[in-house]
């Protein structure tokens, strides 16, 4: 894939998140999901609306990775977590706290960070 081609939907979402305007997709039955998406994965509705991403979430599970893919070679060890933001969960890298202090239940907010290895943008979680 050429470096100047953007991943439609995903890169736009990162742009928005960097501006503090992250969103998620919601169907009429209030199932939350992440873009890019045309159909609600839970109920099949094609009527999806952008909703503002909830302010804070809670870490539901996490891991500290010591053996990364090459894209995170210089970031290791780093913490990756799944955080529960209410209408949906999302996976991200926990930053602004040393990995050994990450714990389940930690309250976080979404903030885009970058890979130290590649400079690519990464979904990040900062402790509130």
């Amino acid at each position, binding site marked *: 894939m050429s470096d100047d081609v953007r*991943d439609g939907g*995903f890169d736009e979402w990162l742009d928005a998140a960097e501006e503090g305007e992250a969103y998620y997709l919601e169907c009429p039955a209030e199932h939350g*999901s*992440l873009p*890019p998406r045309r159909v609600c*994965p839970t109920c099949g509705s094609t009527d999806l609306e952008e909703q503002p991403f909830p302010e804070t979430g809670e870490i*539901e*599970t*996490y*891991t*500290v*990775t*010591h*053996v*990364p*893919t*090459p*894209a*995170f*070679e210089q*970031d290791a060890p*780093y913490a*990756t*977590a*799944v955080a529960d933001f209410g209408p*949906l*969960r*999302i*996976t*991200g*890298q926990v930053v602004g706290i040393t990995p050994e202090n990450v714990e*389940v239940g930690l309250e976080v907010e979404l903030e885009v960070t970058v*890979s130290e290895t590649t400079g*690519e943008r*990464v*979904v990040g979680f900062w402790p509130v």
Partner: protein
Amino acid sequence: MSDVRVAGTGLTPFGNTPDRTGRDLFAEATIAAFEDSGVPREDVDAVFYGNFMGELAEHQGHQGPLMAEAAGVRAPATRYESACASAGTAVRDAVLQLRNGEIDVALVGGAERMTNLGTAGATEALAIAADDLWEVRAGATFPGAYALMARAYFEEYGGDRTDLAHVAVKNHENALTNEKAQYQSEISVDDVLEAPLVSEPLGLYDSCPLSDGAAALVLTSQEYADEHDLDAPVAITGSGQGGDRMALHGRAHLARTPAAREAGAEAYVDAGIEPSDVDLAEVHDCFTIAEVLALEALDLEPIGEGISAARDGRTTANGETPVNLSGGLKAKGHPVGATGASQIAEVAKLLSRDHPNSEHVEDARIGLAHNAGGTVASATVHVLEVTR
């Protein structure tokens, strides 16, 4: 509906052979399977072949016909890719076509060449079984994703790294007699706990190795087996497949694997058996926690109790239901695209008393094989029975 008979099985040694090509590995496995079966190659009606990372590891797509050629078979050939469940889905399609009477003889199997990529390259290749945009780009690796499930399990049901270590110790113990296994070495609980961490709470010894290898099965319809008087005492009597959301964070539950539950339930009904009828199982233990989740999803252990099954001896060789008598992915090795077929081969050999560990399961008549893809967004389960 016709029974499906396991006429022959063939496995290469699983291990670290970076200079062997996929076609070389698969050819070896198929030669063994055809010899074991007594079925001539020209009787094969279709080839079902599992492979996951061929494009990355060998710059080779379109592997179906290539592998049929390597096996010396001229028949329609299709590659199945479902991450680590690739061969499981290949077996399932073969079973369905054999039952439907579409075909009489199937060559089924899979191969993977991984170690030539090195650890970093293989870690990257394995990671593509996860959601690229929302998991891989957040730094999730394959062990990392299972580590997320392990932590979620500990939080919800309890258990710790020591419990998981017993799974690894058990599976290494079982592999001691398996000459095809990658590791034929005993390990202790302390070895597991002291090994370098890969993705906490999982360490190096909680993880299956990178492996090269291939597996092949010759499956036939009941009619074909009767007509040719094949020595094939074991039948595949149940098949099931389940699916789930791709990304772990999209699942209903982070410490359960509903796709495996669906696949298991379907296979049990299909075979007309109950979980309590299962005498032995090969389950997908790419990581120690994966075996725990599989046992619970397959109703071989109650939810929240699978964690203690190895530690308390329920799944050890002399336990009530031995699990992974082959050594499992953990010790036997996990050439991704070969794994599902190799599990069927091991169960068939265990049930037909043709396995070094058959002595532990003398009276076994029903075996189960569970193959999972990614963090179990795909799963297949097959029931094998001695029916003669």
